[in-house]
């Protein structure tokens, strides 16, 4: 009987929120990825390209160096602040004369990410050895310690951002033909870009702050969905949410069972699972 109760506690308290968080993080990153690729008109864009992950990691690593990481709940909050700060900075750098130039955005993100890497390395040098393992695990992405409050927070943010992106779905679809073309079709391009970028950045920041940096989902899943269905943004948005969720749940499962009693970085498994699938699709479409 008590064994049953323990199993139940593990299922409800640990396994279930973890699986749900995996699905939510995957959905969020893939949704943000397809949004960034559409807005920047760049197939290499991912949710981290504008410095969101760098800012979050920077915040987390400074918190670690300052010894704050041992306090519960501090890393996610500081990471989220870092993500928002980075997004704001990239926008201030890229925007001039009420026009946000995609190339300037990409360059600003690139440069800021390089700066954040430097700060992260310095912070690690200043951190205590015992704190470093946790910080590194976070940098490689982890769903360890997922809680119901994380699940609730991310679920709410994901639903809100999906709703916002759906309202500008028709406009984002038109952006695929270029900004001038979209403008001539009655799309308020600058407004749509601003809403899209901010929505995708905030929700990415939230995902990163609860799960660390899980690479590849945001880049790969939109391409996977596009290869499988070849449709426009309005179709891709829900498809990416589903595909991203499935991929990260599977990757998380693998990361826990491949080596018993140890957790391998989940970000590696999103690539291990996704890349062969992606390559086979790419071959089939040639």
């Amino acid at each position, binding site marked *: 009987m008590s064994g049953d109760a323990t199993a139940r506690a593990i299922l409800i308290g640990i396994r279930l929120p973890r699986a749900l968080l995996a699905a939510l993080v995957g959905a969020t990153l893939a949704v943000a990825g397809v949004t960034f690729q559409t807005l920047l008109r760049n197939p290499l864009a991912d949710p981290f390209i504008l410095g969101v992950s760098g800012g979050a990691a920077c915040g987390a690593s400074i918190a670690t160096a300052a010894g704050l990481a041992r306090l519960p709940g501090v890393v996610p909050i500081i990471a989220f602040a870092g993500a928002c700060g980075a997004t704001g900075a990239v926008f201030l750098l890229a925007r001039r004369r009420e026009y946000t130039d995609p190339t300037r955005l990409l360059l600003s993100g690139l440069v800021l990410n390089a700066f954040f890497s430097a700060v992260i390395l310095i912070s690690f040098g200043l951190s205590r050895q015992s704190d470093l393992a946790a910080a590194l695990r976070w940098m490689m992405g982890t769903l360890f310690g997922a809680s119901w409050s994380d699940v609730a927070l991310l679920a709410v943010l994901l639903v809100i951002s999906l709703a916002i992106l759906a309202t500008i779905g028709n406009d984002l679809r038109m952006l695929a033909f270029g900004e001038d073309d979209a*403008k001539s*079709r*009655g799309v308020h391009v600058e407004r749509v870009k601003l809403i899209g970028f901010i929505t995708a950045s905030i929700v990415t920041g939230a995902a990163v702050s609860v799960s660390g940096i899980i690479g590849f989902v945001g880049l790969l899943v939109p391409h996977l969905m596009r290869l499988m269905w070849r449709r426009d943004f309005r179709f891709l948005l829900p498809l990416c949410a589903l595909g991203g969720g499935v991929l990260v749940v599977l990757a998380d499962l693998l990361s826990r069972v491949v080596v018993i009693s140890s957790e391998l970085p989940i970000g590696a498994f999103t690539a291990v699972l996704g890349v062969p699938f992606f390559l086979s699709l790419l071959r089939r479409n040639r």
Partner: protein
Amino acid sequence: MLALRDVSYAYEGAPAVDVITASFDPARLIALTGPNGSGKSTLLKLAARVLVPHAGEISFDGKRLREWPAKEYAKHVAYLPQDPDPTFSMRAIDVVVSGRAPFLGRFAWERDSDYDEADRALAVCDATHLGGRYLDEMSGGERKRVFLARVLAARPRLILLDEPLASLDISHVQQFSALLRDIVDRTGVTVVYATHDLNWAAAYSDRMLVMQRGALALDATPAEVMQPDAIRELFGFDAEAVRAGGRAWLVPKVG
């Protein structure tokens, strides 16, 4: 229909369109020409509402452009940029039906009637067979047809095309010019297209606008524009006129 009055536009202080006044009537094929950098693209973008004039006024149906709701204007006036290049390859039918976007509500999807319009537009452009194909599997000439169909799908009254003949071979230039002429004659739409090809423009258009350093240097019939003296002054091109088929063709003066 569309009227520009003293319209000017400058990029970072360098004037691109300089105090232009012109107006366009229904059912005309109008060629917009002029040397590189003379402001043709900018003029088209101003008319398409991609850019907002720094001075002067543009009105459509007697109503100033800024009083037109953006989507409402897009139902009447369609614009095709010089090199439309979607980030990801799409099927032609999806490209064409996206031309119906100004008619869609915020959350609405294309209906059967929108696909009917798209099919009709493809047929007009002689491109029905391309409907199911992907853009990256097409030749340059086929892509141009698909994008022209996209513009037609909204049944606009004014169509603005930025160098639609660029990079087409000579037989496709003729086919495409004839297609524009045919669309104008059959549907009563007005087409304004930027082009560098004076002879083709003169052969097919009703009227030619020649720009020079942002200003409208000449607004006249093809016969009036195709004078060697005028061309030499406007383009710095030494030409002589050769008569054939009842009209003047300009050929380079050699030697």
